């Protein structure tokens, strides 16, 4: 069964002569548990595509179904809750909340849902992410790699079915990059989560189950990696 289905997504910015088509009739689907990398030049439209999938932005036309649910048919309020529970985000700039500790940052989406975090799962995540010693530290007291691991923890805490990562290794050195990718892959397997990741790094792209390329708003499926 497909977790994600993208149907004929178009996105146009501006109008008339100044109109720019960022996405042109993009369609693809991703089955549950698959790890997909999206590659492409700067300005090719990959971030726009990721924002559409994450329901952060609305397309000019087309449809995105996550778990069979049409995200753009939802009202703002229910969309926020849906996003909170079903989609995990990992950003290039980590985007942690500076006034919350590592642990608080990770459980933040659960707290927003007015739920109690699953302590066992939290401990498991902290240990997988190798952050047990740092749980009471503030983001400013962590290295870049550690901050990104916290961000991954935050993305995983609600056990979302879909994780969207926009260049998660863009701000990291090679070793930290490998660690982060390994973590994402492990999570994908362990918790049966679907990962869609934008990357510029060919090596990292090759670790994915499938690679999609966006060029001038047009998506091409490069197929499964041989590695």
């Amino acid at each position, binding site marked *: 069964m497909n977790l994600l289905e993208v149907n004929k997504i178009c996105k146009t910015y501006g109008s008339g002569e100044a109109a720019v088509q960022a996405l042109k009739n993009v369609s693809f689907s991703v089955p549950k548990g698959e790890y997909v990398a999206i590659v492409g030049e700067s300005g090719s439209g990959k971030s726009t595509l990721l*924002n559409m999938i994450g329901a*952060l932005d609305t397309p000019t036309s087309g449809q995105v179904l996550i778990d069979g649910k049409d995200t753009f048919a939802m009202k*703002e309020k229910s969309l926020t*809750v849906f*996003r909170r529970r079903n989609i995990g985000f990992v*950003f290039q700039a980590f*985007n942690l909340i500076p006034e919350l500790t590592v642990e608080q940052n990770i459980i933040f989406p659960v707290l927003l849902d007015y739920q109690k975090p699953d302590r066992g799962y939290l401990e498991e995540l902290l240990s997988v992410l190798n952050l047990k010693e740092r749980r009471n530290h*503030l983001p400013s007291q962590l290295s870049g790699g550690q901050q990104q691991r916290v961000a991954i923890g935050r993305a995983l805490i609600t056990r979302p079915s879909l994780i969207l990562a926009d260049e998660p290794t863009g701000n990291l050195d090679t070793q930290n990059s490998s660690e982060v990718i390994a973590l994402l892959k492990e999570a994908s397997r362990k918790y049966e989560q679907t990962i869609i990741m934008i990357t510029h790094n060919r090596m990292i792209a090759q670790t994915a189950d499938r690679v999609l390329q966006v060029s001038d708003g047009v998506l091409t499926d490069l197929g499964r990696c041989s590695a």
Partner: protein
Amino acid sequence: MTNREMKSYLSLIPISAKTHRKQNRLILLCIIFAVFLVTTVFSYAEIMTKGEEAAMVRKHGSYHIIVSGISEETGQQIKARENVSRTAWLRAFGEDIYEGYQIGDKRVVMYGTTQEYIEDIRKYQWEGTYPQNDHEVMLNEIARERLGVRTGDSITIHTPAGDFNYAVTGFCVDEWQLYNTKYDGVCAYMSLNALKQICEANGYDGEDSGGNHAAVSVGGPVLYVQFAKECNVKEAVAGLKEQYGLSDGNIEENKITMGMAGASSNQTINGFYELAAGVFGLILVAGGLMISSCMNSTVSQRIRFFGMMRCIGASRQQVMRFVRLEALNWCKSAIPAGLGISMVFTWALSEFLQRKVGGEFNDYSFRFSVIGIVSGILVGVVTVLLAAHAPARRAAGVSPVAAVSGNAQTGGKISRAANTRFFRVESALGVYHAVSAKKNLILMSLSFAFTVTLFLVFFAGLDFVRKLLPSESNLNPDVSIVAVDNTNSMDRGLKEKITGLPGVEAAFGSAMWFAVPAEINGAPGSVDLVSYDEYMFQWTKDSVVSGDLSKVCGDTDYVLTIFNEDSRLNTGDRIRIGETDLEIACVVSEGIGTNDCAIVCTEETFRRITGEDNYILLNAQLTKDAPEETVDVIRELMGENELEDRREDIKESNSSFWVFRIAAYGFLGIIALITIFNIMNNISMSVSAKMKQYGAMRAVGMSIEQMIKMIAMEAATYAVCGLLIGYAGGLCLHRLIMNKLVYSHFGGSWKIPAEPLAIITLIVILSCVAAVRAPARRIRDMAITETINEL
């Protein structure tokens, strides 16, 4: 897009102003507000000053000195002096009411003078012509009403030496009727020669003809002298004295005009400008702070823009100049708008005060005030330049790299985490945002506390002023009749007669016994015994300080006392007058009584103790539209007793209370607005600085409502801290003021002022709501992707 040619990088300012019109709205409002306030205050200060001057000239004349004991020739020489602009001779006769000088049955005061006196020296309003020969007179307006004469009629002045006939040539509104409404006579103005004839016929040739007008008159007419505007009046007077050998006894100064000429200080007039200058300073500081924090907020919203300018080669100075000129650019539209609104407001205010309040405000007619306009423009430009300084430096200090990478906005280092244990996470973050920046928290809390404290202090002040002004009391009479020999001799029936007159709202009477020997709690002393009728008891209810008023009813031995700092009679005190034992059942803060130790009883008790049944004092309250004839009828009814008409005084003290209220509430309004603007800006700035973080929070699942709640919690934290400090400080000061000013003089004990507390709390809550609204709208409109893409 604009097609205009860009001549310099500064040409970007108007283009950028157009696109950022929305963001700049608050700054424009701040400037308009500051200009409006200052222009209004100064314009009104000028209106009041000119009005006061006009009123003073009408009341006291426009002359500077009165010279007596000089010959006609010397008078001519004085008139011809370079520094003298006008002179007029005046001889007064009958100001002390010489019996036997009458027109019809009205006593008459006669003045021998010239047209200059009426027209230039006194500036009386007049109609008709001034007497041209010795057989003509001009009468005052009262005479027209009381004698029922018209221009052209003949009148006869009866004197002990015989009758003198004159033709009436006109009427004038003189000071007798403006300020001596109690005087029951008329005035006649005639030529000097005509008055001389009357004086000579009655054997008063050269005798004292002074009186109110010219107390220094030592014989014959006196000369009123008005000096030229530009001359130094003090020196001119000294010169006159020296040249004509005049002593201090020959010269009487008009202190009012001398004061206005700067020769002596006039406190009222200087006071208006001092007050206005104070307000100017306050608005300069407050406006500066307001505009500065607004600009800071717009600068922090455009930090990337300034970074970009620095990146592409703008120097720090250029960025500073850009920000300053941008600020001045706002003045272009804000200052005229502020001036315009102020003109309309000042006009409306003076119309309102003239029509609705009247009294002294009748002289305060609207005028375009140059001082007001200049100070308005000045405050606009100066505040903007002062206010732009800090934001300009901030903009210039933006590091090009940091700005473009978007990290310039992150605040100081964070050392402690937010507490998510007790609050929900969004509330915890909101509180944390407020508490983490200590300096900001202190400033914001103090700003709220300042408003709360001042509010309570002003309320205490209003209470005090209300107590001070007798016109605000429930038992305040418009007219009072006092028994002619100051004994209880006024017939009780008079009260009923007056009550039945049209336009009389109520009439109430008192009997009094002064300095009655009495034993107070066993010790010998004396008290004043006063009786109240039912109406008076009914209105005394509101001023009970302690005890039970209901006991003082019918023929009883219970009495009440009016609070008096010196006598300090209290509830339960026992007083023995003759064979009667009385007990004080109640203390009231105000009432009609005497200045000494006064006890008040019912009419029945008074009758039993004293055996007297009549009144010493009868008061009447009139309705607003009471006809003038009512007072005339009361005059006729009262016989030989004396009438005190207090309507003018009441009107004046009412208008003073109005002014105080307008000033106090205006001041409070300014403070409240500053607080609201301040918190609005702070919240807005705080949101701007965290916009990216908010974007990320939205991406990971924070709803708009949660986000608004977070911001509201931040505002609420400032408000709660401010309210707590404000309550503490404000209540202490309120208690101090009430104890020192009100309770020590009028009695009573301090209670928590629930009403003002509720009002100020409401204002603070509303200001929080206002402060959260704008950022909430911004967050609703925020596209998550915009902030995410910048990451």
